């Protein structure tokens, strides 16, 4: 436990706590919207976004990576929503076409940049290298997500449960859907440093998915997801030191194992409960 006295380790734990909680909270929306696959698509879009950021600014900095990832994810995410508005193309279809195209562009640009080594860090993250600026970014994005989600909880829930009814009641459904997408992208960006763009999907889906096996109450889904996400992330960081593994993968594997356990042992919706019925 002498690791705890190192500032980098303290920062890593703080980042795990903040990112784990806010992403875990948000994972409730991902589970309710049933768009876990589009989260995966979006997270992969961040890679070409980062590459594009380097291409435009000429270097890999925090800012260029963030702006590039945000821009690419927004373009792909909002683009797919816009295309799907025509009713002819399902959003999943639109998303798949657009994100693979964006990913292809990223792959094409990558060899032309000589920062590939550092890009790998963005793919899988490095929570031990979190700086104070990263912490503040994570804290800011996490607070914003929690604030907006809680202020708009009722319209958000009605929109996800019955979009038609919500629209008739005067809820600006389209605005709410774009807002959810924007918050999702922000959450992905916030978790870049900790687990990278590929593994961030786990933190944005697994906690909510696990809790949804254990409760039928929506508030419990969000707050429980937050607590589980925070516990999983902090636990992952602590475990990784013991196991001698990279923290990012350990966090995601831990969350995945907890999901598996809930899927098997959930008293109401678990595998074993299903056999007993």
């Amino acid at each position, binding site marked *: 436990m002498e690791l705890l006295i190192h500032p980098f380790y303290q920062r890593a734990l703080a980042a795990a706590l903040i990112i784990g909680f806010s992403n875990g909270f948000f994972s409730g929306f991902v589970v*309710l919207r049933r768009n876990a696959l589009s989260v995966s698509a979006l997270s992969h879009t961040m890679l070409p976004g980062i590459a594009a950021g380097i291409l435009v600014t000429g270097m890999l900095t925090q800012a260029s990576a963030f702006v590039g990832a945000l821009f690419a994810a927004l373009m792909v995410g909002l683009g797919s929503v816009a295309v799907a508005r025509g009713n002819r193309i399902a959003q999943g279809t639109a998303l798949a076409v657009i994100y693979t195209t964006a990913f292809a562009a990223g792959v094409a640009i990558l060899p032309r940049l000589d920062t590939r080594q550092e890009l790998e860090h963005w793919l899988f993250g490095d929570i031990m290298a979190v700086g104070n600026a990263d912490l503040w970014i994570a804290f800011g994005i996490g607070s914003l997500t929690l604030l907006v989600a809680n*202020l*708009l909880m*009722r*319209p958000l*829930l*009605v929109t*996800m*449960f*019955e979009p*038609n*009814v919500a*629209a*008739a*009641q*005067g809820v600006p459904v389209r605005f709410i859907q774009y807002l959810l997408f924007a918050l999702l992208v922000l959450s992905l960006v916030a978790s870049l440093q900790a687990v990278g763009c590929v593994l961030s999907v786990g933190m944005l889906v697994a906690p909510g998915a696990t809790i*949804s096996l254990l*409760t*039928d*109450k*929506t508030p419990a*889904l969000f707050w429980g997801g937050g607590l589980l996400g925070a516990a999983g992330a902090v636990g992952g960081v602590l475990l990784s030191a013991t196991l001698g593994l990279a923290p990012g993968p350990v966090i995601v594997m831990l969350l995945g194992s907890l999901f598996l356990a809930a899927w098997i042992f959930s008293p109401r919706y678990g595998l074993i409960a299903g056999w007993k019925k």
Partner: protein
Amino acid sequence: MSDEHHDCCAHHGHHHELVIDSLRVCYRNTVALDDVSFATSCGNRVALVGPNGAGKSTLLKAIAGLVPRNGGSIRWRGTAVKRWSREFAYLPQREEVDWSFPITVQGLVEMGRYPQTGWWGRFSTRDATAVEAALADLDLLDLRHRQIRELSGGQQQRAFLARALAQEAHVLLLDEPFTGLDRNASRQLGDLLEKLAREGRLIVASHHDLESAPRLFDEALLLKSRSHGFGAASEILSERNLARIFGQVQDADERPAPRAIATPL
């Protein structure tokens, strides 16, 4: 809840009218409803009858404000309904509901109070009382903590009706409420709708079972993109009228069934 205490008709001594005048709804380039007019008042149960694709669901959604109107007007209690009225409650078709949504019966009924509480407002004692009363009225107190998928078909209908009551809606718009219910549940729902109408609510429901319609409803609207007759259910649902509506269905009018895609897998 007794007749005297209901704040709709019993208090005012006159009947609240719902007047639909030359309603027109288009989806893209298709005219779904054209020149649909009828007038009814609370205390009635109105059946919307017509072949598949006649626009029954669309008419309900148009009244509820779920689909935009391209023409015509809807007046309730003498004032034009612009987009949506808190006094209208729409109950979706069963297959349109996401039954695995993590929400309990009580949570669903509480959603009925959102129009009153607004986006941020606290849940007042008045809101809590309305939720309790709605749960008690529809005999759902024991089921309040159940997730909505764990209910039988009849209970699911009652849960959505309870939400409408919590909303203090006077006009209940039900899309095929009897579909998928067994005989007992069907009879219970029939009795319940009769009670709700007697208390002064107006019930408008799409209904496809022609045989039970005169028993379950007071009035009927024959619909096939346009209104083809409106009046007392027993009269309007005559053999001759029904033959006129259903008999003239041509193959071209029916929606083609989706074709299965052959795959080598």
